[in-house]
């Protein structure tokens, strides 16, 4: 269990570094996508540890809607949000 937490935390931290330091807006958008993916995994792990399957709904909402923000950033860079 500790190994899982360390792996998830390390991945989240690396993506977070790219989010803060990222040279361009596109780098930050990709880093945001990565962090939401890793966070979804962590939410599933929390639902497993607490033993309540209804907490999986939160992970479902995350995975359904997290790409919308990245899509909006892409459309903005493209010039579609004016």
């Amino acid at each position: 269990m500790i190994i899982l937490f360390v792996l998830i935390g390390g991945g989240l931290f690396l993506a977070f570094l790219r989010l803060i330091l990222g040279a361009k807006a596109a780098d930050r958008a990709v880093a945001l996508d990565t962090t939401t993916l890793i966070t979804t995994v962590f939410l599933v792990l929390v639902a497993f540890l607490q033993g309540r399957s209804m907490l999986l709904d939160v992970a479902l909402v995350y995975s359904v809607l997290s790409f919308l923000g990245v899509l909006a950033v892409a459309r903005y860079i493209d010039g579609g949000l004016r």
Partner: protein
Amino acid sequence: MSAEYLFYWSMAATGLGLVLIGLWGVLTRKHILRIALAFTLADTGVNLILVWSGFLPNRAAPIIDSSVTTVVDPLPQALVLTSIVIGVAVAALFVVVGVLASRKSGSADIRHMKELRW
């Protein structure tokens, strides 16, 4: 310094820090949309503190089934649920007014918005 103590107080410290950072941003930033972003940050911090005020460690989420006996306080969660949705509508209003003000004065910098001086 038990783990429970750290778990409980780290939530409050995060919310408090977000409120203070948002307040600092509102006071010192120049760009009108940056001020709106700082406002949103403070909003998130206030919501965190409100939910934290009904939270007890070692209890379950307030959805009763056969395996759960003690749950956390549902009342602050119900208030925050509506507060988040209202917060995004107010942020939309803020953005619209900011865009109109920057159109009128020709710049998004609040130092150039002469009409807003008092």
